[in-house]
């Protein structure tokens, strides 16, 4: 009987063990990025831009060139890289504090310029690296280090919807929100990330994939319970779906 290898580490994913907390979604999302790069056979010309936050060390987990950007500035750094080396595949990997708070201007304007790049936005409604503070995407009533009585809309506003905001702009060609709370959604997320990189490879323009994710440590929940909480509480606020698909990449697939 011959054995066939059916599952292995993507070539673009390095052998460095993840530093992420047990149950964290970052590892899975990193893998989806690496699989997309490998499937499109662009690893030799891919340049990643790491944010500030839990995924600040994202560069350790991939086997291609990387820049580590200041907090929130990854889309501006990526703009400089992509304009210098248009043949490269350039992506940013950012969390909600990085992209939706301090880096709001940079993401909106990179999107509005239609930079030919890919953005992977991991939204887990909390600052992880700094120990669980309120994020712009934290839910109303959500208790965090800096919203100990729960997020109050009267003083802290409402959760910000980045995908919906970016989809109002004319230039972006693909804006979608996915999650990885079950296998079916994981496969959709994989497809979305692949689409976003494929569009860049074809020179089509700015693609944005928001991944609604868990933070078991700072949510104070076991990973399985966290995914349940995500399904019941986050998805009603951050509905899954594609907000923009100018080139019909989802239908074509």
């Amino acid at each position, binding site marked *: 009987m011959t054995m066939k290898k059916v599952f292995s580490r993507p070539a673009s994913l390095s052998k460095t063990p993840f530093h992420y907390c047990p149950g964290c979604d970052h590892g899975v999302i990193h893998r989806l990025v690496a699989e997309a790069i490998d499937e499109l056979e662009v690893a030799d*010309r891919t*340049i990643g*831009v*790491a944010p500030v936050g839990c995924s*600040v*060390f994202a*560069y350790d987990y991939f*086997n*291609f*060139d*990387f*820049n*580590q*950007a*200041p907090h929130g*500035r990854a889309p*501006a*750094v*990526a*703009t*400089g*890289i*992509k*304009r*210098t*080396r248009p043949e*490269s595949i350039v992506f940013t990997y950012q969390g909600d504090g990085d992209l939706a708070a301090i880096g709001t*201007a*940079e993401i*909106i*304007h990179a999107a509005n*310029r239609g930079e030919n790049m890919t953005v992977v936005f991991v939204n887990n409604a909390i600052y992880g690296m700094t120990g669980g503070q309120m994020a712009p995407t934290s839910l109303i009533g959500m208790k965090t280090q800096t919203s100990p009585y729960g997020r109050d809309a009267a003083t802290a506003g409402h959760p910000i919807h980045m995908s919906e905001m970016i989809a109002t702009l004319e230039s972006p060609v693909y804006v979608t929100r996915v999650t990885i709370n079950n296998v079916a959604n994981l496969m959709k997320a994989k497809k979305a990330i692949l689409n976003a990189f494929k569009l860049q490879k074809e020179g089509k323009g700015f693609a944005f994939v928001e991944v609604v994710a868990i933070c078991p440590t700072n949510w104070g929940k076991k990973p399985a319970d966290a995914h349940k909480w995500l399904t019941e509480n986050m998805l009603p606020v951050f509905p899954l779906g594609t907000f923009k698909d100018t080139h019909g990449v989802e239908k074509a697939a």
Partner: protein
Amino acid sequence: MAKVLMKGNEAIGEAAVLAGCRYYFGYPITPQSELPAYLARRLPEVDGVFVQAESEVAAINMVYGAGSAGARVMTSSSSPGISLKQEGISYIAGAEVPCLIVNVMRGGPGLGNIAPAQSDYWQATRGGGHGDYRTIVLAPNSVQEMADMTIAGFEFADRFRNPVLLLSDGVLGQMMEPVNLPEPRDYDVNSKKWALGYKGSDKTERNLCSSIFLDQDELEEHNWHLYQKYQVVTDLFSKGEFKDFAVEEHLCDDAEIILVGYGIISRILKTVVEKCRKRGIKAGMVRPKVLWPFPTGVFERLAKTASQFLVVEMSCGQMVEDVKLSVDGKKPVFFFGRTGGTVPSDFEILNEVDKLVRPD
């Protein structure tokens, strides 16, 4: 090439193109706006990239990205905008990415005004942003030097893998003078082996551009590495290859009073020295052309022959501290300044000299 009549801001733009710079990222601010306007028109002619960023913060980070990918790249701004760029400059220095940053200084603090000033000296020479780092600071005093030092700035940046700051002011940016432009140089974006996206058969592992060293021993090692690089730069400017580039001396050999000023002030000081000489006052002038590393050696030497120093600045007194450190208490160092956007006249400065040399 024939002489061309140009504004200082435009001379920087054309010199950047001739130096092989093909990437500019900036944000509008007076009194440097002619520079981005010039490059917005000029860069597309040479297949370059001009991006008007959404902010100074974004612009410097685009510079960080482009520089890390091997570009010869620049940004420019004026005082308040340079404050906004400090975050990025710190990262760029930490990650050792070459670039040119132009500051056409205006009056501060805060929004201040749009008139010429020299009150960003401390910010320029002490780092400006957070952390143990230095930027090489060049101080032109003519439209010709705006061009020459732009080209030299790119060379220094690449050679030392360090940000270079061209510290100019609203007068130099706005005034017109004839300029001799050099022949264009070629620059290959793929010439830096450490750059992201570098393609070459000698690339054995992936390239990383980063300023994070979470382990304290690693960060200490990195900071001492930077320090040693800064020592090499200091030596080259104080006694090595760029010794003559770093400072201009004018009639100092027999001078009893040494006037000290950089940038546009040095042009006025030259007139003051002439007038002093006509009146029998043995005056000389020292002009630091490089503000970091500061040319301390010339002051150490002249402290032995001159009897006093007068530092003149368009600020309440910033470079005067470096002159005092260099003179090291051996001779008195006096200060005269105008601030808030006012340029001192030769007459005012001459009055100060008179008070010092004829104290009754």
